[in-house]
């Protein structure tokens, strides 16, 4: 395994506010590396530093062996970027946007033409290729930006929340595309809010909060970290007092989520018996009863709450 992204003690200060705080990690070739964190955690700041758009306050980044400080042009040459809040040129056609990217990365003309055709076809944009981007829908624009980031056939692809704001079908298309690119050997660095997305796509996930990395591991291993703690989800036909349930044996914590109650317990079996007794003695009907193991979301919430 080859390390393709190496980050050491990376820090970014904005006038005394530390957006990224001494983070270190490595990404191996062929990984889909997820960067997961709440709003304002420092994901975009990190991506901007890794893609050479802004300079870090301190710390070291190397991309495929190129130090970003001294060889940023060489590093940028071999990466593709889909920024979080970025647009293609609205006044240019899809085709001209792609050709402009090819020129910026020095892709030879005939090669660029073939590649643009391929990508437009793949993203179902070919028949709109000569239309100005300002006539495109949000999903079409996002697909075009992804296509633009692929014009130079990058080794590493950085995606900053690529599916945010897209409908299920467009998001699916982009996710499938990411998986396909990864199968083709590309390393992918993906930031997202969506747990499911990270769980589904990523081989490893870093959870970042307040500029610090709270954990890095494979999704399943992260879930195991908080295993041992399981819970029972229950819903009654009438509202109940959560504090009653806290008295049941084994129950550590009770949380409301919607019309459901979540009972954190270390003895799920006993808790269920007691719930049944409780419903009988209070004349309640159980509408739903479920035992669950932790999801990535639980890990996320647990880790981000701890540090917050």
């Amino acid at each position: 395994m080859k390390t393709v992204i190496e980050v050491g003690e990376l820090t970014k200060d904005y006038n005394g506010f530390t957006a990224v705080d001494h983070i270190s990690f490595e990404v191996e070739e062929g990984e889909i590396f997820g960067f997961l964190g709440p709003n304002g955690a420092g994901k975009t700041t990190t991506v901007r530093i890794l893609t050479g758009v802004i300079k870090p306050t301190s710390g070291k980044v190397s991309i495929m062996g190129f130090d970003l400080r001294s060889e940023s042009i060489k590093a940028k040459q071999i990466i593709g970027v889909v920024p979080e809040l970025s647009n293609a040129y609205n006044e240019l056609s899809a085709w001209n946007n792609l050709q402009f990217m090819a020129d910026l990365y020095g892709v030879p003309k005939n090669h660029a033409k073939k590649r643009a055709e391929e990508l437009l076809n793949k993203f179902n944009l070919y028949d709109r290729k000569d239309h100005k981007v300002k006539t495109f829908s949000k999903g079409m624009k996002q697909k075009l930006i992804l296509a633009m980031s692929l014009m130079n056939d990058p080794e590493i692809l950085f995606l900053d929340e690529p599916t945010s704001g897209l409908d299920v079908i467009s998001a699916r298309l982009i996710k499938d595309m990411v998986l396909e690119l990864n199968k083709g050997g590309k390393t992918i660095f993906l930031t997202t809010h969506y747990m499911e997305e990270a769980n589904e796509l990523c081989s490893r996930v870093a959870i970042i909060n307040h500029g610090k990395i709270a954990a890095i591991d494979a999704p399943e291993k992260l879930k195991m970290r908080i295993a041992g703690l399981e819970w029972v989800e229950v819903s009654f036909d009438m509202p109940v007092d959560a504090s009653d349930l806290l008295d049941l044996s084994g129950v550590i914590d009770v949380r409301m989520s919607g019309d459901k109650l979540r009972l954190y317990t270390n003895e799920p079996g006993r808790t269920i018996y007691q719930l049944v007794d409780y419903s009988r003695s209070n004349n309640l009907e159980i509408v739903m009863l479920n035992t669950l193991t932790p999801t990535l979301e639980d890990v996320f919430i647990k880790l981000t709450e701890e540090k917050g």
Partner: protein
Amino acid sequence: MIDQLKRACAIAKKDIRIYYMKGPVVIFGILFPVFLFLAFVIGRDLTVDFLIAGLLSMTIFFTSMSITPVIAPTETQTRSLERLAAAPVSITTILLGDMLASVLFGIGISLVPIMVGMAIGVTVEHPFILAAGIVLAAFCFSAMGLIFSSTPTSMTSTVMMISTMVKFPLVFISGIFIPVGELPLWGQVLALASPLTYITDLCRYSFQGTNYYSILVDATALMIFFVIFMTVAIKLHGRSLPKRL
């Protein structure tokens, strides 16, 4: 190095497609200097070649500086800048590209007053010097335009205001309406500080054969101004680019 130059050309091509292929820009570029010029020369007894030389230098001045200040704030607003900043191009390359587009536009439009002049019987006595001067001046003023847009704003109007506040006073101290030699002493000193003075002088020489400074001084001054403007622009934009994202 060559790669970066090619990429600068790609950026220039993009700028031309987006910013210059618009009717209003072209029309404004031609009409504005003409009207300003007419407003000041009508009723005064000046020779035609004197007028054309002044009009030409003013046209280069205004057209070369019309778009470079607008590109950065517009791309800040439309959020297309981050994509460009992530590409393997240096800030110098980006600015060079923007400037190149502006230079081509400046040169293109400056042909209009020359043709008008020739149509009414003015002859260009030193065409090669004139051509070289126009190119040099176009670079110089495009670079100057870049400085105006180096505040990290997304408001085109702010930049336009700043640039107008600088542009207009310069027109009056650069020997366009009154030859430098006829200015009072303080005016002559001020004129030295304006790059527009030197291209005006160079145009006078090319059309009339007479000039106030020497051609060498004119060319050197334009070159020095260009280098200063470019250096300052690269520094300032390097600092403001991260703030635009």
